[in-house]
């Protein structure tokens, strides 16, 4: 095993343990903080794969902003005792097992059916430039559509937040 493999396994173990923490911890705030660790672990895997731009965006947007918003929402909406705020749902555990088994099967199938072509020695340099050209070139319509969707969401949020105007 090479050193780089070791790094990958360490990162993967870190991410999985943090993800398990999200599911298993009884305190929902602890879960949210574990989610931040998961995001950072995933970002580490991106770095490891050479996608440093994606990794940094993962940290900036997910770990830095979205998880903070989640913790915010949890803190604002939670009025019960926090230490038991993340109850385990034992009711649907067989259903959950079935669906996660199905999902795992699908994943294994897709991994098995991919050919995994290897390119030797093609180091990725300047990933941000390539991503920029792709976003603004080949996929510009998808990019703009996503932008319009987000804009609509922002306007909707503003209207909801303002409430009805009294006349």
């Amino acid at each position, binding site marked *: 095993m090479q*050193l780089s493999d070791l790094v990958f396994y360490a990162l993967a173990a870190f991410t999985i343990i943090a993800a398990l923490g999200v599911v298993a911890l009884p*305190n929902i*705030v*602890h879960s949210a*903080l574990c989610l*931040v660790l998961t995001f950072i672990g995933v970002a580490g895997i991106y770095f490891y794969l050479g996608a*440093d*731009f994606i990794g*940094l*965006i993962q*940290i*900036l947007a997910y*770990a*830095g*902003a979205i*998880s*903070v918003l989640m*913790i*915010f929402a949890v*803190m604002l909406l939670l009025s019960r005792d926090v230490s038991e705020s993340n109850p385990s749902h034992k009711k649907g555990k067989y259903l959950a097992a079935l669906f996660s088994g199905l999902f795992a099967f699908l994943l294994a199938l897709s991994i098995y059916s991919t050919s995994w072509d290897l390119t030797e020695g093609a180091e990725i*340099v*300047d990933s*941000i430039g390539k991503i920029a050209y792709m976003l603004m070139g080949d996929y510009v319509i998808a990019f703009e559509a996503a932008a319009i969707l987000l804009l609509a969401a922002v306007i909707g949020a503003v209207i909801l937040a303002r409430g009805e105007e009294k006349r």
Partner: protein
Amino acid sequence: MKGAETFFVDLARAIVNGLENMGMSALGAEIILLIIKFACIAGIVTVNIIILIWLERKISGFIQLRLGPNRLGPWGVFQTIADAIKLLTKEDIIPSQTDKIIFRTAPIVFIIISLMLYVVLPFGDGMAIVDLNLGVLYFISVGSLGTIALLMAGWGSNNKWSLLGAMRSVAQMISYEIPLVFSLLAVVMIAGSLNMSDIVNAQDKIWFVFLQPVAFITYFIAATAELNRGPFDMPEAEQELTAGAYTEYSGMRWALFFLAEYTNLFAVSALTAIMFFGGFKGPFLPSWLWLPIKAYIIMLVFFWLKWTLPRIRMDHLMAFSWKVLIPVTLANLVVTGCVLHFLK
């Protein structure tokens, strides 16, 4: 003169060569060099901050026609050392109702994050610890993690002032991150790179502060807010929130927060120097002296602002970000893009 210019670079190379001659692999030598670099940064930053705090107390005194600390040592330079010794030996209180793990880890996370900011700063020609291609983006994204540490401190303390302070600081930091990034983006567009050394080299002829005055002003305001410094020190407004997110922290844990704030201050000042004032470039002196000099001058401006302006109200603060700074920075970006397009 030539020796002074490349002193640290040569030293690093000598260490690596020495380690390799002792039979170490190239990777191992690199890792050891990295550890040495980190240790150096941590040491320099700590010493630096002791000086900084003294300087701030002295300058605040001078601005208010006072003398400031002047009893311990010449001009009171040992004052912060006395404070540090006292804080080190103070009782470490962990209130019984706190979320213990979060309460304990929050200051450590905060100081680690603020020290991580130094990784990409080029302190001289070829003197960045890691010369990342995406240096600016790294700085911003790691800096944004600081909100989580503050939120942890506020939540873990189980105190209403802490929580209110944390919420304020998080709202403030997230709102001001957007104009901060947009202002820096204008500079990045001109330089054509996210690498900090490249940005400094692009300022060979003219500093970006002259090319992008609007971006500089918006950046400076956003950075002040991002640092939670006066006049934007709402999160620890002691008249309303006792000490904000730090209310329950005592002794060394509180000192760590304080240390991290000043670490951030120095890092952001250095970033300002790099992005707008030509970084390590300057005549006569070796390059590794120019960045600290410029950063210190910018820091003095931060002090000056803090001790001049009164704190502004929270809703004004948020409205200023969303209704003024973001539209201005967006317009600035559009104008910059158009000009660049037509110049090409």
